[in-house]
């Protein structure tokens, strides 16, 4: 490590107050500057922060975007999810590989490029997409790859790839992204005009308890997918003892196929921040953290600018809007590539500077959250709803949607349809209605709620999106008849194995076993008893896993088995001789045969 790097790291640690809880900011900073966090860097950071070195290594090795080994100047990360796979992932991967002259997870000898894949980056409505360092490149095709790489070779600056910026704030000078919003339908709650301070002024005229009561009267439930009543969560947190309390906004939108938060963050950041501030007022918190997934780093400057403007307008900071004693501010915590950090306790771990392991519950965050203090964690969209509830009234909000599911829901629609994008719809909309709205004519299967949700078929299209029927965080992936159901399921299982934190046995091992069996079935090596095997293993993983990841990861297999049994049955064969179909003798001797220079000699009589 040279002097410059040493001094860079020392300064970075100092700028974070040598606070070990700011470890994420430090290692993300080092990775950004040096394309790796070396062993020496870990030693130095550990010494500066007073941490064991292995704790630094633990965090660095946990997050996909951080690495101990040297990466290239430009890190090309091709988005790998089922939608991208449907729209040419393989061809583009090959094109990049040929153009760069390296395979996946390799770095060019000149150190200029590293080529990798990454889990869904929230661009399914403009797939295939990739990250070039922090720059998002969308609508890739194999022809454009050559030009992209040529252009990058010239100055290694991915930002110059953005020739034409997207609509709305994607063209903001602090964003400058080629990303499109694709807002296809604006409902009454999220995508209407909003004047910063409008809701807060009304909220601060109420008592904190009245704010909570409004949220409860509006029957607001969490928009992240689990649907916990927001007002109740706030009440618990308010009631919990703690010198400090925290508000966290979960903008770690990692569920493959979900991208609606990205659009809110781009177009309605004030609605989010205002909701967080109202939450802070309601529960008595002084600090808020918005956890922004690393994939959305391109929005960081813009969001920080928005916070700055809010401070300048007295909407954040000391005595907000002149209300004595109400001090509240927000900082943004960047993630670094870990789906699990969307789980609220893992998100808290990450904010604390730890690897993104979920925490044991109880205690729940409402009792002991960030740094052990009572903490509210809500989704981006939930905070937006809060702002509107206070702005327009609980009654107004509850008029939308259904009795058990009030308000509207943002859906991220992708796959086989003419108009992929973000739709704000009232709860209670049926899948039929939705498919018609998005221009999907020949739909065979719909994945509701992303991989952790469920795959449903035509028999279920009369069902409705709401907490009592098809609950969803917002992902809707649409598949036509010619799609292979098991290929979809395979993509989801690959994802879960990749994203398991590895803390608990059933999730760490069980998902590998599910994935392996699925691969065998797809290779024609399945037998009828495999269905029971998958079911039993899947149920065990769901029941015994420690957090929501393992409690939902078997869903792709379990729901596809329930709704598309033929997709499995047509591949399964009973072996009459009692041989294991998973064992292929020719495959097993292939290497030895190659070494020996001859094939198998049959000794059977």
């Amino acid at each position, binding site marked *: 490590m040279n002097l410059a790097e040493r001094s860079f790291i020392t300064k970075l640690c100092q700028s974070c107050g040598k606070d070990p809880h700011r470890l994420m900011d430090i290692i993300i900073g080092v990775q950004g500057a040096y394309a790796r966090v070396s062993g020496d860097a870990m030693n130095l950071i550990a010494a500066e922060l007073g941490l064991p070195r292995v704790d630094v*290594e*633990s965090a660095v090795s*946990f997050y996909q975007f951080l690495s101990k080994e040297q990466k290239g100047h430009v890190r090309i990360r091709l988005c790998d999810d089922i939608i991208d796979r449907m729209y040419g992932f393989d061809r583009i991967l090959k094109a990049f590989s040929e153009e760069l002259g390296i395979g996946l997870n390799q770095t060019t000898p000149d150190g200029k490029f590293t080529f990798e894949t990454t889990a869904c980056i929230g661009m399914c409505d403009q797939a295939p997409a990739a990250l070039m360092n922090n720059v998002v490149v969308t609508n890739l095709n194999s022809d454009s790859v050559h030009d992209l790489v040529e252009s990058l070779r010239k100055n290694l600056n991915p930002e110059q790839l953005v020739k034409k910026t997207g609509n709305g704030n994607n063209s903001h000078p602090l964003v400058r992204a080629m990303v499109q919003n694709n807002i296809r339908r604006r409902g009454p709650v999220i995508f209407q005009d909003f004047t910063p301070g409008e809701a807060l002024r009304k909220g601060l005229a109420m008592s904190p308890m009245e704010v909570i009561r409004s949220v409860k009267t509006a029957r607001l439930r969490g928009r992240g997918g689990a649907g916990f009543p927001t007002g109740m969560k706030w009440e618990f947190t308010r009631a919990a003892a703690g010198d400090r309390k925290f508000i966290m906004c979960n903008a770690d939108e990692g569920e493959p196929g979900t991208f609606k938060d990205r659009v809110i963050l781009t177009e309605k950041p004030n609605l989010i921040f205002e909701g967080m501030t109202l939450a802070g007022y309601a529960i008595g918190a002084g600090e808020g953290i918005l956890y922004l997934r690393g994939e959305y780093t391109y929005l960081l400057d813009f969001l920080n600018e928005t916070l700055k403007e809010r401070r300048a307008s007295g909407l954040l900071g000391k005595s907000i809007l002149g209300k004595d004693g109400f001090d509240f501010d927000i900082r943004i915590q960047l993630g670094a590539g870990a789906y699990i950090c969307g789980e609220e306790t893992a998100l808290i771990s990450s904010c604390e500077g730890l690897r993104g392991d979920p925490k044991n519950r109880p205690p729940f965050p409402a009792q002991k959250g960030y740094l052990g203090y009572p903490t509210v964690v809500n989704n981006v969209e939930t905070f937006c709803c809060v702002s509107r509830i206070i702005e327009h009234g609980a009654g107004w909000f509850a008029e939308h949607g259904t009795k058990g599911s009030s308000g509207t829901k943002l859906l991220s629609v992708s796959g086989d349809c003419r108009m992929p994008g973000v739709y704000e719809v009232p709860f209670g909309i049926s899948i039929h209605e939705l498919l018609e709205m998005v221009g999907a004519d020949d739909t065979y299967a719909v994945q509701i709620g992303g991989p952790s949700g469920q795959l449903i078929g035509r028999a279920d299209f009369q069902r409705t999106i709401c907490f009592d029927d098809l609950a969803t965080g917002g992902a809707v992936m649409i598949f036509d008849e010619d799609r292979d159901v098991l290929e979809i399921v395979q993509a989801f299982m690959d994802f879960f194995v990749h994203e398991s934190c590895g803390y608990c046995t059933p999730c760490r091992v069980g998902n590998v076993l599910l994935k392996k069996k699925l691969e065998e079935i797809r290779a024609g090596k399945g037998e009828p008893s495999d269905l029971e095997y998958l079911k039993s293993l899947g149920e065990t993983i769901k029941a015994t896993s420690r957090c929501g990841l393992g409690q939902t990861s078997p869903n792709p297999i379990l729901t596809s088995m329930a709704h598309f049994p033929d997709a499995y049955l047509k591949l399964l064969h009973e072996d009459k001789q009692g041989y294991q179909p998973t064992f292929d003798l020719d495959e097993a001797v292939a290497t030895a045969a190659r070494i020996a220079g001859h094939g198998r000699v049959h000794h059977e009589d």
Partner: protein
Amino acid sequence: MSNTITFSIDGKEIECKAGRTILDAAEENGIYIPRLCHRKGVSPHGSCRVCTVIANGKPMAACTTPVTPGMVVENDAEEVTAMRKAIIEMLFVEGNHFCMFCEKSGNCELQALAYRFGIAAPRYPYLFPHREIDFGHPDVFIDHNRCILCARCIRTSREIDGKEVLGFVERGPRKKVAANAEHGLRETEIAVGDEAMAACPVGALMPKHVGYQVPIGKREFDHEPIGSDIEKEAKASTK
């Protein structure tokens, strides 16, 4: 207000102090709840999930879940046993557990649980991962082939020995215990007398030079299932 809570395990009414975990409360009452990552005296981890019970209808880890008044816990139930066996079998196929030459055999808690549950062979395919052995320290080694990621060594070292010699790195199936140093255990302050050494339930973190000291037939789990001590105490006290 009374500081005592009443709840039930498998229909048996039990009293315990408020704040106890299901696992501890059960143990105090002579009921053994199988466990691997749990170790007395260090903070609970909740990672192996072997101690899963059904508490008020929901599967919960007994080692991290506090008892609540009137809680109904199922421990010795078919459904629970099936899940535990599945988890133990997962641990066997995940690593490379060669019991026949492992110094820990007979005293190994993973093996002992398999014995207790009568597991003759796992139903899952062996994964045979490639794992390293950290053999650089003069007195101590880690064989990652045998590690079940229970964090007992990490927690014991930090909480009892007051040392920061171990931690977890990587994630998912690649997660592993790592030394607090660039080049393995030899660069750390771990010592053969550390409590952490005794904490490993399997043969992963082991002392050198002292294998196979106890002959077959005299080892901890040769004759009686793991947990018998807890269950025996209960029998003795009811007599």
